[in-house]
């Protein structure tokens, strides 16, 4: 039996949404909610309440704006443009963000395999990502969670592919610099 790829299933759910069928939205929500939530969560430095609010806003915008989505664009590009704009708008209303200089990094070199150290490491990475400038942060999170191509990220962030490549290169080098105290852990990682 042939299986549907993600785009085909999205198209089916989008058509249902356009008919006002809430089950269509439920299906789109189920397919994308964790990635949208995770992007918002890491964009806002682990703020779960704000990430939940962003996720809610994104899907409400999706259901009311689905009529203006045209099939000539990839649905995920349109969806993640909503995510990017919603995150940026919320960020403008929010208190100043953490800067790289504010980070208090913990060295995990002593026993990197320990669970608590792994958790601490994740928190450290999360803080370093949260300290990236907004456009860099969004490019990194879209690439990591949604595995968008550079072209798709460019469409979602309304910039050129070259800009995406440049932002990602700079973002990863900034992360390496911010994570210098725990660099050895990543150097030994497969």
């Amino acid at each position: 039996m042939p299986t549907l790829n993600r785009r085909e299933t999205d198209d089916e759910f989008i058509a249902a949404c356009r008919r006002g069928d809430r089950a269509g939205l439920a299906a789109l929500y189920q397919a994308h909610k964790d990635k949208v939530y995770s992007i918002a969560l890491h964009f806002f430095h682990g703020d779960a309440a704000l990430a939940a609010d962003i996720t809610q806003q994104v899907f409400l915008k999706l259901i009311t704006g689905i009529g203006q989505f045209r099939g000539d664009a990839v649905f995920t590009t349109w969806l993640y443009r909503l995510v990017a704009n919603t995150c940026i708008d919320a960020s403008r209303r929010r208190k100043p963000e953490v800067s790289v200089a504010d980070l208090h990094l913990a060295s995990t070199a002593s026993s990197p395999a320990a669970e608590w150290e792994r958790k601490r490491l994740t928190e450290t990475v999360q803080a370093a990502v949260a300290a990236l400038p907004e456009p860099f942060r969004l490019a990194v999170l879209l690439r990591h969670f949604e595995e968008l191509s550079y072209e798709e990220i460019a469409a979602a962030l309304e910039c050129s592919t070259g800009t995406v490549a440049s932002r990602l290169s700079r973002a990863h080098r900034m992360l390496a610099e911010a994570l210098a105290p725990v660099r050895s852990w990543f150097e030994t990682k497969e």
Partner: protein
Amino acid sequence: MENTHISELLAAYAEGELAAPEHALADAHLAVCAECRAGLEDVSIGLRAVAELPLTTAPDAVWNAIGRELDRRADRRRAARWLAAAAALLIVATAVWYVRRTPGERWEVEGIASLHSVGVGDWIETGPMAEAKIKVGSIGTVDMTPHTRLRVITAKPLEHRLSLVSGRIHARITAPPRLFFVDTAAGAAVDLGCEYDLVCDREGNGYLRVMQGWVSYEWQGKESLVPAGASCRTRAGHAPGTPFFDDAPAGFSEALARFDGDGSALPALLATARQRDTLTLWHLLTRVTTEADRLRVFERMVSFAPLPPGVSRDHVLSLDRAALRQWREELAWTW
């Protein structure tokens, strides 16, 4: 590329996003450039670090909240339809009542010793220190500040019309829409049930600022709809200025002044717009001169407020009047 640093391409190189010829050129450069090799190591560290970020399951509460909000919106739309029908009925009833009870066609004037009432054709002028108040039939009042000159044009039950030559007036009107008008050299302010300031010089240059309700400023078939808390500039010989909220960021209102003047600054306008500035953006849909600009305005608007059911992108971009009106009515909840 062998002699050119590739620091901006290192992530694309590491993630296999470069086309084969570019990748080969990057390889050649990396073989001879220690600086870029070091950069590539940093990028690899960054990529490995980001791989540590876990996918997190969205809480169930999010979907429950979405369901509640959709239910609330459906209720609100039903209520709005009933309210609109009731309001229409009330307007008709009020108009009938008003026509039957309107008193004579002279209006009382306070504040000028030699003038106690005015009728059609009469002039009223305040001096450098004087203020005056006109009782406009039974529908409201107009306060005149010093150095204001105006004339009564029409004083009928269904049309109260003044001509403001220069100066500043403050109007408070409690009547059905489109019974009170103020003409200036740059257009006419049409009352839609409201309180507002209107300021202009002899050429019509000035502004309209609305405190309550709505005012329509009209000139040669062009219109600016201005709600409470918003203003629009007026200029002689030009369409009314695009309305904007008084609390808009300085950069936004400055960019709007440039747009109204010479059509420039659209990118700055779009970049600094907030959600409630869809008031301004909605007006821009019919004011931009190219389809590409209209598409940019549209895309910025839908990033704030998606289209209501039944209104499509094509409707809006083709300036379908009914669709634009329906979207404006939906947006007005946020204005």
